[in-house]
């Protein structure tokens, strides 16, 4: 035991990519706090049905309509007599799921297309990138509204819409990294010993794109949550009585003058979640970007 410990100390710490990342990420105080917040949020989302004090959809108390926050109802009661805290907790599930699933789908498809475009160049590159340019030309929310208009409303379609509008960004990101990586000597070396294109892409280039994709992934979740909430706010996303934050905000509009808490809490939930993801993304970027390495 003793011998081994001495040995490790002699050659310094072994630097796996993971503890290299962790070492740098620890320094991003804000990023760490945001990360903890996100972890808590995910835990809440998973545990929501057990920790929510009331049934989010089927509990109602018509004697407490629009009641302000109290001990019994920490976030108050909405216009239909439902407990706002329970609805926000359940809503975390929907918003996080919408954010994760849509961005994950967009990231997988986008990265794959970007790798192909960047590695092969030529006509594949031109077609993929021109389509991406067309999608880029639309403001995100407008594109999402257009897609929902074609597919019809509802949560599932909102996720598809947000995934589609995430694809071009990931494609462009992966393509840029691929173009840089494939000219490096180690790739040439792999090719010279006879590796197939597929091996080169999957084993040697793809890992190089991961840090950029991860950073962008976390930044993108914030945007996606906002977009999904916006679509629900406009009545195109989650349908009543689903406790989606954007839909709750929409329903609260009518009573905003007399019962502002109905709008404040869902708005705060969206705000805090999106901010946390963006700050986490910033922290990850600083930790993962080799150019920012200030060891």
């Amino acid at each position, binding site marked *: 035991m003793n011998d081994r410990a001495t040995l490790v100390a002699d050659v310094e710490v072994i630097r796996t990519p993971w503890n290299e990342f962790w070492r740098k990420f620890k320094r991003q105080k804000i990023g760490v706090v945001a990360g903890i917040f996100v972890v808590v949020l995910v835990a809440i989302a998973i545990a929501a049905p057990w920790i929510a004090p009331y049934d989010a959809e089927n509990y109602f108390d018509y004697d407490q309509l629009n009641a302000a926050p109290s001990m019994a109802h920490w976030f108050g009661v909405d*216009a239909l007599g439902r407990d706002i805290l329970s609805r926000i907790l359940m809503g975390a599930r929907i918003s996080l799921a919408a954010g994760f699933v849509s961005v994950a789908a967009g990231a997988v498809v986008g990265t794959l297309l970007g790798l192909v475009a960047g590695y092969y160049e030529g006509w594949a590159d031109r077609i993929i990138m021109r389509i991406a340019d067309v999608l880029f030309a639309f403001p995100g929310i407008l594109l999402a509204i257009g897609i929902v208009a074609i597919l019809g409303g509802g949560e599932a379609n909102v996720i598809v819409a947000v995934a589609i509008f995430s694809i071009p960004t990931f494609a462009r990101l992966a393509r840029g990294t691929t173009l840089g990586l494939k000219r490096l000597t180690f790739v040439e070396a792999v090719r010279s010993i006879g590796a197939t294109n597929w091996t080169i892409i999957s084993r040697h280039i793809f890992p190089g794109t991961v840090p950029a994709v991860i950073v962008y992934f976390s930044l993108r979740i914030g945007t996606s949550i906002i977009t999904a909430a916006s679509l629900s706010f406009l*009545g195109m996303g989650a*349908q009543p*009585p689903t406790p989606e934050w954007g839909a709750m905000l929409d*329903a609260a*509009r009518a009573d905003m*003058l*007399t019962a502002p808490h109905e709008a404040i809490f869902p708005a705060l939930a969206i705000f805090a979640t999106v901010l946390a993801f963006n700050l986490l993304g910033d922290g990850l970027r600083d930790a993962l970007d080799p150019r920012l390495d200030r060891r």
Partner: protein
Amino acid sequence: MKFPLHRFAAALAVAAVAALAALPAQAAKDVVFAVASTFTTTDPYDANDTLSQAMAKSFYEGLYGFDKDMKMIPVLATSYEVSSDGLVYTLHLRHGVKFHDGTDFNAEAVKVNLDRVTNPDNHLKRYGLYSVIAKTEAVDPYTARITLKNPFSAFINDLAHPSGVMISPAAIQKYGKEIAFHPVGTGPFEFVEWKQPDYLKVKKFAGYWQKGLPKIDTITWRSVVDNNARAAMMQTGEAQFTFPVPYEIADVLKKKPDLALVAAPSIVIRYLSMNTQQKPFDNVKVREAIAYAINKQALAKVAFNGYAEPAAGVVPQGVEYAVKMAPWPYDLAKAKALMKEAGYPDGFETELWSAYNHTTAQKVTQFIQQQLQQIGIRTRITLLESGQRVQRVESWQDPKTAGVRLYYVGWSSSTGEADWALRPLLYGESWPPTLFNTAYYKSDKVDADIKGALLTTDSKEKARLYKDAQETIWHDAPWAPLVVEKLLSANSKKLTGVYVMPDASFNFTNADLK
């Protein structure tokens, strides 16, 4: 004594300034009415919306009208006689009435107006209301004779409907189809300008036949769609009257010392129609279960902030021949039992559509969804915007394929009479696209009652038939009757004599500003 000229000039100037300063004391009485929608037209014969017709009462009047309790009163006519076969109506007209353009109001004007609406080539939206007229004749300048195609006992109520106004025959001749942009009537105010979609302005008509009226100089009708913006205009004094006041904002305006919030009774009934031709709503037990499962009292609180009452019958009180019934009770146990008897112990899934997409409808439908969930009925809500409503409900051609199931909608009988409250909504021949029987309800008994009541001239018999019809409908439950809403308006305490009528139109002939 010599009076220097410059002194004289100075005195004159002082007098002039004093005169100017004194002016505001008797300043022009200009008022602003803030309303919730844009006007579709100024021609009441071509309007389907109550608001445009209500606004048009600025410059137009009818032969008959309603007072604030929905009692019919003579306006440009003074009296009428009806022949014993119920076919010929003889109307005696008011003397000494002039249109804004100086034309005399007489029997010829009545003929021109009724001929215009009954000519199908003119494609006026209210053609259906007047198509019962066979011909109109001017017997002498102040006597008009109207002959009907068939006896129609509610005919004078049709004339009192807000669409039945007298337009200057000279103006109709001059402007033709453009009359909607140049309204000329006998009303208390003359048309000034219509800046679509912002405002429409009218000014006092000096030659109005009711002496001493109107007391205000101008009215500017402003269309302000946003609820909060309208409430803000009232609070800053930018507007002196507003209708409707959103239920959510009522409490805010109520607290303002210089504003009066008025909750007026209405004949607007809100109900949930159920497509009786489609499963599972063809089963009366399912329909009854739904009616039992909705807590009407709570609905009034949730969606109407308390400014509504559970519907006490099929036809709201205030409409002639309405029969008052005990509101449908809220009884969850009974609703569940009925569902079980009907063979749906676990409920079913269905569509819930709303004829409107405003916040109140949003709350009503979500409330109904919440309530029906308790007996296992899971609903998918769609708030239709007006185009979708026409396309998917009102003008749907084939009853067999109609997608409407549960349908939240409302109705006000603007003729103030039971016929227009029952026939368009529950008569067997009124299925869409003909009229608005969205329950696709058909009962031979009710059809016979409605038909019989139109033919009879005996008001006792009429009352009996309408009572029977309403009781049969209540029993068959093609609707879950919900609430009769109150009409919320707000006005500056300086403004008097403006009120909202039970059919949601306005009366402001006696308006005055302190």
